């Protein structure tokens, strides 16, 4: 008896881009990605942590990331994700789109 999925990130699709960007630096597991996002954003970006997983599934289905079972730094079994070649291409596309978008927003805001 589910309800329609609620989009709760302010910029639609930005979570995907953030994950791809994170993974383009290093391979990480789910929790690691969340931590990285928080730290690198100076705790400004608070992702609803659960939303990460549907996003990971989506990315993997599209073939942009690849998850394999491995061991974390503190020796726990976890699924470690890494970006694929297609993922890097997608990241470039999204980055460009994002740049355009932010530029457009900045112009609108600056015009005031």
């Amino acid at each position: 008896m589910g309800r329609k999925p609620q989009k709760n990130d302010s910029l639609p699709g930005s979570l995907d881009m953030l994950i791809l960007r994170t993974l383009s630096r290093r391979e990480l597991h789910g929790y690691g990605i969340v931590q990285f996002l928080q730290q690198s954003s100076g705790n400004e970006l608070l992702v609803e942590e659960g939303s990460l997983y549907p996003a990971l599934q989506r990315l993997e289905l599209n073939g942009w990331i690849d998850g394999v079972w491995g061991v974390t730094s503190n020796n726990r079994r976890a699924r470690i994700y890494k970006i694929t070649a297609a993922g890097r291409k997608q990241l470039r596309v999204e980055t460009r789109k994002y740049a355009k978008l932010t530029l457009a927003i900045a112009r609108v805001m600056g015009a005031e």
Partner: protein
Amino acid sequence: MLRRLRYWIGSARRSESLREEMELHLAEKAAELEAEGMTVERARAEALRRFGNVGQKQEESREVWMTRFWSELLQDVRYGFRTMAANKAFSALAVLSLALGIGANTVIYSFMESVLMRSLPVADPESLVVLNWHSRPPQDANKQWVHVVHGVQGLLWPGDKGSLVTGMFPYGALENLREQKQVFSTLFGYFNARKLSLTVGGQAASVHGEYVSGEYFQGLGVSPAAGRLIDLDDDRRGAPPVAVISFAISQNRFGGAPNAIGQSILIDNVPFTVVGVTPPEFFGVDPAAAPEVFLPLHANLLVDAAAAQRMYSDGNFYWIEMMGRLRPGVTVAQAQAALAPRFHQWVEATAATDGERSKLPTLMLAPGAGGLGSLRREYSKPLYVLLAMVGLILAITCANIANLLLARAAARRREMAIRLSMGAGRFRVVRQLLTESVLLASLGGALGVLFALWGVRSMTFLLGRGQENFTLHAELNWKVLGVSAALSVACGLFFGLVPAIQSTRPDVMPALKNGRGGGPRNRAQHILVVAQIAMSFVILFAAGLFVRTLKELNSVQLGYARENILLFSLNARQAGHRDPEMGTFYADLRKRFESIPGVSSATLAQSSIISAGFAGPAIKGPMKIDAVTLEGARVLSAGPRFLTTMQIPLLAGREMDDRDQPGSKPVAVISERLARTYFGNENPVGRLITLPEEKRELEIVGVSANLRYGGLKNEAAPMTVIVAVSQFSSDRMTYALRTAGDPLRYVQSVYEIAREADSRIPVTNVITQAAEIDRTISREVTFAKLCTGFAVLALLTACVGLYGTMSYTVARQVGEIGIRMALGAQRGTVVWMVLRRVLLLAAVGLAISVPVALSASRLVKSFLFETKPNDPLTLAVAGGVLLCAAILAGYAPARRASRIDPLAALRQE
């Protein structure tokens, strides 16, 4: 798409790993928070809070690899199976009755299709027409046959108002009509050669043959499987004798179509050369016949010269059947308009007297795409009756499903209300209910397919009466199956949808408050139950009539022995024997059969008694005693020891024996009824019967008890004249052996003796007398069996409906019953309260269906024997059975009602 599918397949594993991933996430988060100084519990709670709704996130993730629709469908199906499992008996009965309904419909309809609608497997069957004619009744006021038809070889069938309809023509008509070349591109003739003896490499077998004119195969547009087919050159006097054989024969006797070409065969002891093989799907022009050997028309001059002489020269002898292929653009009506005057002119010239001229045949053309109509004439009506019955059964079944779903929806109003108030989407709930109904219907449909597959096979067997070469082979009709299945699914959808929408009305509070759930409305259910009862009664009544008919047929007094008699036929003429040697051959053979240990007596006759009359008359013309013509006397030619073997009592004189030789004085044994009618109390032995046309006299040597001549439906005590086979020759003989124990044990010895006597003669139609008799009533047996089955099915289904409705009613009234009992109502009163309603429903159903059943039963009048279509006994029994079944179905809920504990009931409220 493929990847999605792979994901979907691995979804269970993926769910598990996703759960593990999330679990790890939560654990790490909690550990981190703990490190920041939180207690274990708080850290865990905080981690969960920040994570969000775990279940929902899992759901969303799963949605990525499996669309929501499918995942929900899977849920619904799973849930549907669970609810079905919770109501096992109910669901099983619904599914089963649906399966039987769908299956039975498919089977019967598949047969209808193959009998009534299938086209001949030839090129462009639509342009074929069959030539028939009709004329006024041939009998004049004195019941004398006055007609241009002086002789016939084939089948006449009655048309409207006693008129005569047939497809047989004299050869001259074919020659004449063939000249008219504007309407037909080809006109061809053929006639049934009946059983021929086919000898291949010394091995004889009896096969169906057909004589065909030279244009036959070309006209039908059939191409050979091997060799060539009969053409114009083969069909003339003096042409080299050639034969075309069926594909099946080429396989069985030559091991393949190509091997048969050029082989020599003997047909009725006349050598023929096989020139071709017909394609496997070809069965001639009559779906009922399926010839195995095709011979040129004029080859009958070689095979049966005596009969053939008359055929080509006599313009009043009717024997050949015709079919034509219309030229492109010519309609049947145009062809009729062009040919009818031509035929009229021709046939007028063959009439000799004014009496004959006054009732000349009129040509009628009929569409020939379906081939000849003999099967249709025989089976269309029984099939329509069966179709009507199975249609009713499907209706009952659908009503049952509807009822079940209505009751269940009503019972689940509360459940639905809870779901709705928990935030389930209305559409989602409706969809779930629909999934359940469709699930039920689909299961029924799937089982129905299995049932239909099995049914088609057993029906072929039942209708075929065990005939070895029965040609009516129905294939499962997938279209029909689809329609029946779609109907049931549609029924499931519709009757699932109405209550589903009702029970998901936004206003859920009343349903939640009402402990029992369910509104007051179950009128729909009552209507359905009444309809079911009414329909079952119709079927029950029909079954009753057919069972009664069968009982009457089985209790018919035969006047001769039924058990311990073995019958089989031989045709020595087909192996080249001729009179008078043939008579001696048959007589010797009888003695040898009689000498088999265990055989107490053996006899021979023109045919078995039950099929007497079909083989054609043994004597020509009328019979007279002094100057009085014997009216309605039936003749059977039989050999020595006939009465002894058949255990027909001899009342006076003697029976046939070996003294009756071709040269000695012709003798007759008459039946008691004939003796009483024409001789009163005088002793007829020694008196004479004269045969003016044969210019012979018969001396009456004995009087037998009455015996039923011909089929069971014939008159009980006819006047019969038994003459000696030795004195009135017959080509084919049916032997009868009276045996000790099972007659079939002696078959081997019979084969050995026959082979020893003449290996060219095949022994055919080996059967026990009992089976031979039963074969003539196989349609009645089939009907009685099928209808009884249908009636049981209908009754059971209706009872399930009734039971369901009453159970639901009782469940709804628990409170009321509880109060009544608390106020001192006795158990019996409660039982009666429920049963009264059952009886009321049954009575309403009966009131509706009795008039319907009575008027419908008139339609099956022709299937009944010694049973009136409005037979009151059957009506009473059917009604009684129905009421008993209704009470039985209603008793369980009534009993449950009476066991209600008032305290518990009231507390629940």
